[in-house]
């Protein structure tokens, strides 16, 4: 599938999809969205690249170990749970911090966002690792 149309369209679309997936990830706590959905969307964007340009071409430009993403995500998600135990709370208890930043205004940060980012990375890493390994298979 290396038609010019597909290449041009995917070059425009993929950054937008990735931005949307990040916005889904960050919206996840209060609104529809979340780590899993965002991760699947990110993975679908990258796999669009893989399909249109071919795995070998993408790998020659930028070599990525998606299994590392998986490991880092799993680590981040579990460490979020363990970390709050250092403060004397139970595993995965969420903490809530409000802070005022210049220019942006007040932002409240919930510790579950790190768990969500972990899930996001796990989903991306898992799906794309499968895609890449299966696509490279000769």
């Amino acid at each position, binding site marked *: 599938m290396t038609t010019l149309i597909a290449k041009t369209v995917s070059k425009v679309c993929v950054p937008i999809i990735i931005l949307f997936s990040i916005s889904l990830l960050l919206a996840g706590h209060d609104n529809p969205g979340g780590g899993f959905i965002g991760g699947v969307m990110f993975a679908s964007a990258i796999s669009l690249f893989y399909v249109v340009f071919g795995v070998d071409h993408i790998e020659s430009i930028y070599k990525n170990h998606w299994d*590392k993403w*998986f*490991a880092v995500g799993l*680590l981040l998600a*579990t460490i979020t749970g*363990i970390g709050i135990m250092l403060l004397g709370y*139970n*595993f*995965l208890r969420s903490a809530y911090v409000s802070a005022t930043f210049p220019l942006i205004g007040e932002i409240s940060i919930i510790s579950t966002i790190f768990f969500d980012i972990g899930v996001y990375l796990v989903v991306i890493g898992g799906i794309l690792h499968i895609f890449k390994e299966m696509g490279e298979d000769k």
Partner: protein
Amino acid sequence: MILSMQHVPVILIALPIIFGSLTILFRSKSTLQKTLNIAVFSFLLALSIALLLHVWYNGILVYEVGEWGKYGILLVADLLGAGMVVLSSLISLMAMIYATDYMDRKALDSTFFPLFNLMVAGLNGIFLTGDIFNLFVFFEVLVLSSCGLIVLTGRGDHTKMADKLEAIFKYLVLNMVSIILMLVSIASLYATVGTLNMADIAVKVGYLADAGELPWHIHVIAMTFIVVFGYKAAMFPLHFWLADVHPSAPAPIHAMLSGMVIKVGIYGILRVHYLIFSESMFMLQPILIILSLVTIAVGATSAIGQYDLKRLLAYSSVSQIGYVLLGVGMGTAYALTAAIVYLVNHAIAKSMLFLTTGETLYHAGTKDMRKMGGYAGSAPFLCIIFLIGSMSIAGLPPAGGFFAKLLIFDAGLSAQFYIPIAIALIFAIFTLFYLFRTWLTIFWGEVKYCDPTEACNIRNPTTSIKVALSLLAGVVIFIGVYPEPLIALSSVIAGQLLDPQPYITAVLERSVR
């Protein structure tokens, strides 16, 4: 702080997950990983023993994940759960020590360590969760990681890759069907009582039963759960996958699968049915007894006809699980005690036997028993360990299996199940026959060297393999010589299973922060 006793249940689940992800990041350094993983698994064993002692002295430990109170996910460590965690930690530590020398370099460098860690996390999660939906989640963790582990190869593993893949396909598809059945039953249970907390479900079902309004479909749900757990435990009509799947795995994984993973089904029946569905046990107990007798018979008779060593032992597992189910089905306090003693003994002895088998197959260079013979001279260590394992499974003193079998038969006789015990006794003789025939064929008789170019006697166990096997053999003999602590623990567990009120009280009336 982080190491206070209260946090131990969640650490037992989270630590293997953390190390699973760390081992993906450092997966090319297998020497570092071996040391690190053995250290972590020893730590887990120490933690689980500490948890068991804590539960024994201070009562049931309840942990709220995320501090969501009544509506959150709970981890409950009672004596049964903590005891199973000790058992699984012991066997996984031994399998890990064994695997560092047994598995191929390629397997150690790629997926063995992460998946093994996730598998242990799944096992610990199953034994510690107090929430029926989480039971499903940890089942899936267990199933998917063991699927990945079966593919790996070790040095005594003579199964071709094509056969392994076929076995995994069977395992995964059948597991998915049983898991879907489990989800359907969980959904119906939730629609009936409106909660997923097992203690809460037990209270509400008990309330419905007291009011005389127990809906008939509770019994149906109980039966579908029997199917689900019976599938995991390889109960008779659902046992056919085991003989294909378990022998395809490399020896340490085979030991984990046959030692711990099929015990998950027994644990499920003990936990879910004795806690929630005690109202429908009156009709499930005869079914369990009949099915367990058929399981014993089918497993033992199939094992007799086998020449493939691993397959023979897999059928032997089916047969032995039947004895545990017989104890579970008889349902008196004494019978449950016997079933738990049997379960512990079978888990340790069978995993030891499978680890020995892996090394024996490596020594022989083939998996066909007819091509083996006379290895007592070239591998005396394996000969002794195999004998101890066989004695334990067959139920001869001084190995631990003697007391397990004795208790099962005694419990059956005192509860007046004469015919089932007679049948079980006949097939116990079958067990004795096929195990000792195997031992004699492999280790005595005419010396047969399979591979003329490479003499068998240079392929001998390395030190770490010997350490793992000797420790397990020591535990088996210890249980056989001094079984009182295990029997005392099992009888307390059996008492708690038959009267779950302390469990319910501990879960529902805990102090909320």
